[in-house]
């Protein structure tokens, strides 16, 4: 099946000379949730802005639903919904009017039933007659999502959707995203929160310095790059690692009460069995053993750090 979004050799150089995107190519499949991770200034928002038509590309091609975003902008923009990073709202307008306005902009005839459903889904219906300036930050964020969904888009871009949002609201947002996915909406989100990507994404892309460093299925990525940590708590503290254990990558923690062994789950032999045998032969008595999978955050930091 053809990808719903296809970006080829995209370059964006601003008038100041700053190159925000350097030959970016990626494809997004219909119905998936793609999380784009990257530090500030990595190029995430520029990439989204070009796909949505807000910023002109310098060179390269972007196709959405098979259409070119510049030449066939009506076709591409009519199936895209965008939730921007900033809380940009017309403060003196009511929730109902601003959401209806967004629907009209996308060429759709008024449909009060749909607007009502969107507002109810986002727990905004009881605020429909409130002016936006009367709403909290979290509520305004929901209004932006409602505006983006007002014209029933097939693709939804969420640019830092939970930035500055409290934990409860963030989890509510994740539920909203999950419900949208169930209806077949393709979702692309940029985020600083690794746990957000880990929680809801199917695929993860890492962007830094205007380049896509990788795009992988989240599970594959964690399997491929994921390191595991074996923690061995000792009955008696040690000050140095015995010579017989020098071949293992061990570090001492907790003032000698724990040994940490890093290993790669992808390798054929993890070395755990031989390590435990060697510990016993060295006369080190164990109190407890635990393992910890490295998180997406560890992977991200490692990846961005290595290529910085």
């Amino acid at each position, binding site marked *: 099946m053809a990808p719903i979004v296809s970006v080829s050799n995209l370059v964006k150089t*601003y*008038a100041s000379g700053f190159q925000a995107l350097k030959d970016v190519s990626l494809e997004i499949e219909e119905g998936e949730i793609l999380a784009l991770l990257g530090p500030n200034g990595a190029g995430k928002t520029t990439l989204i802005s070009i796909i*949505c*038509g*807000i*910023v*002109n590309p310098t060179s390269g091609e972007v196709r959405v639903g098979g259409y070119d975003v510049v030449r066939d*902008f*009506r*076709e*591409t*923009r*009519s199936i*895209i919904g*965008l939730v*921007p990073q*900033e809380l*940009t*709202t*017309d*403060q*003196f*307008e009511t929730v109902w*009017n601003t959401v209806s*306005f*967004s629907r*009209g*902009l*996308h*060429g*759709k*005839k008024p449909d009060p039933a749909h607007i009502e459903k969107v507002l109810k889904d986002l727990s905004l219906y009881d605020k429909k007659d409130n002016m936006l300036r009367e709403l909290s930050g979290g509520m305004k964020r929901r209004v932006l999502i409602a*505006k983006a969904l007002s014209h029933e888009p097939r693709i939804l871009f969420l640019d830092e959707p939970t930035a500055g949002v409290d934990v409860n609201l963030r989890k509510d947002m994740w539920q909203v995203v999950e419900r949208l996915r169930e209806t077949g909406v393709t979702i692309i989100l940029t985020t600083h929160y690794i746990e957000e990507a880990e929680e809801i994404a199917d695929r993860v892309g890492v962007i830094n310095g205007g380049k896509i460093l990788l795009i992988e299925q989240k599970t594959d990525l964690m399997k491929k790059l994921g390191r595991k940590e074996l923690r061995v708590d000792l009955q008696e503290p040690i000050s140095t690692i015995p010579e017989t254990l020098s071949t293992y990558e061990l570090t001492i923690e907790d003032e000698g009460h724990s040994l940490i062994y890093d290993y790669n789950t992808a390798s054929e032999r993890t070395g755990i069995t031989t390590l435990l045998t060697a510990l016993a032969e060295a006369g080190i008595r164990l109190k407890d053993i635990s393992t910890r999978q490295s998180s997406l955050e560890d992977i991200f930091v490692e990846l961005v750090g290595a290529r910085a």
Partner: protein
Amino acid sequence: MNLEAVKSIYFFEMARTRRTLLQSVVSPVISTSLYFIVFGAAVGSRIQEIDGVSYGAFITPGLIMLTLLTQCIGNGSFGIYFPKFTGTIYEILSSPVSMTEIVLGYVGAAATKGLMIGTIILGTAALFVDLHIAHPLVMILFFVLTAITFSLFGFIIGIWAKDFEQLNLIPMLVIPPLVFLGGSFYSIDMLPPFWQAVSHFNPVLYLISGFRWSFFEIADVNPVVSFSIIIVFLAVLMGLLTWIFRTGYRLRN
């Protein structure tokens, strides 16, 4: 043509006028009424007729033009500048709306507001002076064309402006002098020859002159020339706007 989008932008902008009725409508009506009281009744009663027209009636077209130009430029510029300022412009730019449709929505609303207020001023003027419109259709043509042209001019200023100071620069500092020196309160025949020649470089002179001709059949310049000048100005603005949209100047970069 995305008519729903044009309607949405148009009615969204018109709703702003309803919300700010006092500032949008009442304020210009009061200030223009003051002009009529001071220049029309108080000062005007001591000034002789100009080309057979009472002074109060003579200044009416100029005062309507002053309001129309100020309102159209103000509304046209603010309409597009405000979403740029608040950031909500992202929504317009990411919608399936062509630049022509954006202009129709914003400029249409700005021109409508200008025409509404201009009509109210005309009605207000009729309370103070004895008005006679010799060529109503020509008057409407000048009225509508000027509203559209200067709303478009305002729209371009709104795109160009980076801050509120720039936004107000032309409406506050350029337009009033041009209107006042464009024959609003006098016929340029009353000026020395040098200043008469200088006045011909003032585009607003042609607007006021043509508009006044439609009322009283008196003009400083031929009404056909006045009409041509508006058309040329409109064409220049359309050309400028086409360039702005093609390059994304201060919108998509």
